[in-house]
C-alpha cells in the first residue's frame, strides 16, 4: 500500500538515518511512503496562543495535500506529529481557527480536518501489525531496550490519542516484536529538556540525565526514541550513561535492512 508521508526539516538533514531507515523498513514491510510535494517545515512546536494562525498554515497545507492523496498523512518525527495532529484537531473542532486558516489559504475546497494523521509507530501497529513484523525479523534484537516516549507523542492525550499518557505500551510492544526485551522505567514519559537547551543548557542536562539514569537503573542497555531533539538532548547530556538510537535503526537491524 501507499501512504502520503511528511518527513519534516530535521529528517532531511541531521536526522537522515531516521528517515532513511524508516523508508527502507516500510518498503520491506509492504508500505510505500510517498513524500508529499512542496512540504514546508511545520514549525516544530504547536503554537498554543488562540490567535496563532499563520504559524499553523504549513501543517494545514500538508494535511490538505494528504486529504487529496489517500486521506492519510504519515509522520515520523514526534514534533511534526504533535504539531500536525494538534493543528488538525483545531481544523476539525475550532470553527474560528478553521475559518481564518481557510481564509488565508484559499484552497479549492476548505480544509476541515478530514485527513487522518498517523505516526509511523501507529502504522507499524495498526497497518502492518506487530505480529507481521515479528515474522519478518531476521536478526532478533536480543537486548534490553528502554522506550523513550518523551512528551510530544503522548500529550495532550485528549488530542494525541496515541497511548495511555502515564503508562504507554506501544513502543514496548514494538520492542517485543523485534525480539528485544522492553525495560519499563518511570521517566520514559518525562521531558528531555526540549528547546530550552538553547537558552538554559543546565535544565535539559538534568532532565536528560534523569531519564537515562532511570532507564539504566531499571536495566536498560540502550534507549530508543522517535524524536531528533530528544535524541540530541539525551546524547549530548547523557551519552555516557546509555546509548540512544532511533527506533527505526533497531527495526532496520532486526529486519536485516541496510541503508
Amino acid at each position, binding site marked *: 500500500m501507499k501512504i502520503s508521508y511528511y518527513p519534516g526539516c530535521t529528517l532531511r538533514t541531521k536526522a537522515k538515518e531516521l528517515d532513511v531507515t524508516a523508508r527502507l523498513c516500510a518498503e520491506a514491510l509492504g508500505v510505500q511512503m510517498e513524500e508529499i510535494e512542496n512540504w514546508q517545515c511545520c514549525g516544530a512546536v504547536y503554537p498554543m496562543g488562540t490567535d496563532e494562525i499563520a504559524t499553523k498554515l504549513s501543517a494545514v497545507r500538508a494535511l490538505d495535500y494528504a486529504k487529496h492523496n489517500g486521506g492519510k498523512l504519515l509522520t515520523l518525527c514526534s514534533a511534526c506529529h504533535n504539531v500536525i495532529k494538534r493543528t488538525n484537531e483545531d481544523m476539525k473542532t475550532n470553527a474560528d481557527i478553521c475559518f481564518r486558516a481557510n481564509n488565508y489559504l484559499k484552497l479549492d475546497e476548505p480544509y476541515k480536518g478530514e485527513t487522518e494523521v498517523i505516526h509511523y509507530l501507529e502504522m507499524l501497529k495498526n497497518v502492518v501489525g506487530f505480529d507481521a513484523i515479528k515474522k519478518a525479523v531476521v536478526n532478533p534484537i536480543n537486548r534490553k531496550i528502554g522506550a523513550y516516549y518523551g*512528551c510530544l507523542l503522548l*500529550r495532550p492525550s485528549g488530542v494525541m490519542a496515541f497511548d495511555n499518557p502515564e503508562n504507554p505500551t506501544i513502543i514496548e510492544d514494538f520492542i517485543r516484536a523485534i525480539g528485544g526485551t522492553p525495560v519499563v522505567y518511570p521517566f520514559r514519559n518525562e521531558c528531555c529538556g526540549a528547546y530550552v537547551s*538553547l*537558552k538554559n543548557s543546565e535544565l535539559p542536562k538534568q*532532565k536528560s540525565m534523569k531519564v537515562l539514569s532511570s532507564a539504566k537503573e531499571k536495566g536498560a542497555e540502550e534507549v530508543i526514541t522517535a524524536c531528533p531533539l530528544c535524541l540530541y538532548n539525551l546524547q549530548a547530556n547523557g551519552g555516557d550513561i546509555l546509548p540512544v538510537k532511533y527506533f527505526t535503526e533497531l527495526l532496520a537491524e532486526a529486519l536485516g535492512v541496510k541503508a
Partner: protein
Amino acid sequence: MTKEERIENLNRLSGTDVRKCMKCGKCSGRCPAFKDMDIKPHQFVSMLAKGKIDELLESEAIWNCLSCMACVERCPRGVAPAAVVEAVRDTVVRMQGKNGIKAEEIPPIVDELIPQQLLVSAYRKYNK
C-alpha cells in the same frame, strides 16, 4: 489599553478558564522545570485570575517552561497552565525588543549535531 483589557486579552490568548482552578497544586507537583520557574505553574493560573499580569510579564519562567504538557495532562479541572505560560510568553515576545534569544547569540552555541528542530522550536518559542 486599560489593565482590564490586557487581562482580558491574556485570558483569551491562553484559551483556558483560570476560574476552574481549585488550587490543588498538581501542576506544580508534576512540573519538570519547577526549580527553574521563578513563578510556578500554579501561580501563573492564580496570578492571571487575580490580574497580576505585570509580575507575570516580568517572569523568567516563560523562558524555562518546557511546554511538555505534563501540567495540562494532569490537571483534574481541565485547566491548562502551560497555555497561560505560553500566552504570557507570546505577549512578551510580541513587544518590541523583548525577544528571548538574539540572533548573534546563536552561532557560538551551535555545534554540528544540533538538529534544525531545536533551532526552529526555540525561535518559535522565544522570538517574534
